[in-house]
């Protein structure tokens, strides 16, 4: 479940809770009104309505707790994602410093990691495409990689910190 579906689920739950509550109030009111009008005749009908009202009240309560749990999960996931984003930024910064990239090269390298092509990077930075190509070549040389995909893989490696093979071992255990 990602951030957006979590939010959408919270909205759906909120609408369900309000609708459920409306039904509960309607049945409860109807039971009371019918009891006033009919007394104990039709007690079977009244009992069914009363049970429906009680079930709806419990349903509403259950949905309320669900929504609360969902909101908590959404909030902690948001924190987690932001933390991960912040962490990734610092990992990237560390590599860039290790490679001794200049400020301009850092900008270009970051845009490369974000998946932009040379033309897009050139237009963002207001330079010629040739300049960007030269900067890319220097970045690859300093990082000791031979192209864009290898540059990416340096960071992917960091994200997939589990040693190779352990995922398969985990699957066998489960």
């Amino acid at each position, binding site marked *: 479940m990602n951030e957006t579906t979590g939010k959408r689920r919270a909205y759906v739950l909120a609408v369900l809770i309000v609708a459920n509550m409306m039904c509960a*109030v309607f049945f409860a009111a109807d039971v009371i009104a019918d009891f*006033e009008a009919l007394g104990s005749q039709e007690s079977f009908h009244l009992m069914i309505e009363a049970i429906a009202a009680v079930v709806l009240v419990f349903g509403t309560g259950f949905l309320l707790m669900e929504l*609360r749990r969902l909101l908590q999960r959404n909030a902690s996931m948001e924190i987690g994602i932001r933390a991960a984003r912040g962490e990734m930024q610092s990992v990237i910064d560390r590599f860039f410093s290790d490679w001794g990239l200049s400020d301009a090269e850092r900008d270009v390298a970051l845009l490369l990691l974000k998946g932009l092509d040379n033309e897009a990077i050139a237009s963002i930075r207001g330079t010629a495409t040739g300049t960007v190509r030269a900067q890319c070549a220097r970045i690859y040389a300093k990082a000791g990689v031979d192209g864009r995909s290898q540059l990416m893989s340096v960071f992917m490696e960091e994200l997939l910190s589990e040693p190779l093979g352990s995922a398969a071992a985990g699957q066998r255990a489960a």
Partner: protein
Amino acid sequence: MSAHELEGAGEAGIRAIPVWDPLVRLIHWSLVATIVLNGFVTEDESKLHEYVGYAALGLVVLRLVWGIVGPRHARFSAFPPNPFAALRHIRDTITARNVLHLSHNPLGALMVYNIWATVLVLCATGIMMGTIRFFGLEWVEEAHEAAFTWLMISVVLHLVGVVADSWLSGVPLVRAMIDGRKRVPVDREVE
């Protein structure tokens, strides 16, 4: 304060803090709809008026339950009814060093409780009018109408309060009740 509340969201110098959850917002605007419907649209003694009244009762009861089990900003503990805090808030606002409150501010909190209580009185007297025991009793009817007048006064004061607070604090409150996020300048102290 948790990490996600410190994070900015696009606009420079502004952080958008999620405050009102979907249920709080849905109940707020649904209650607005029921008040408008029963105050100005439905026939006073019609079935529809009764149903809308029950809906309003359900909304307030739901909000009261959510005030106990809901998330932090929706809870009563985030905006306890405290007249002294309200007075302090007025004084602080006048001296222009008001602290921002993420939930309702102390003065707004009193208005919130007042509106809920008034709606409950309207529902109670409305239901009483339909019962055999209280049918035709004049004081019940008068109480129902007095409560409605008080509700209208409260709504006007509520709107004035929202406009004034948005203007003085620079936090657009109506928008917060629509998308749930209060937009707070980064350097402002929040409570």
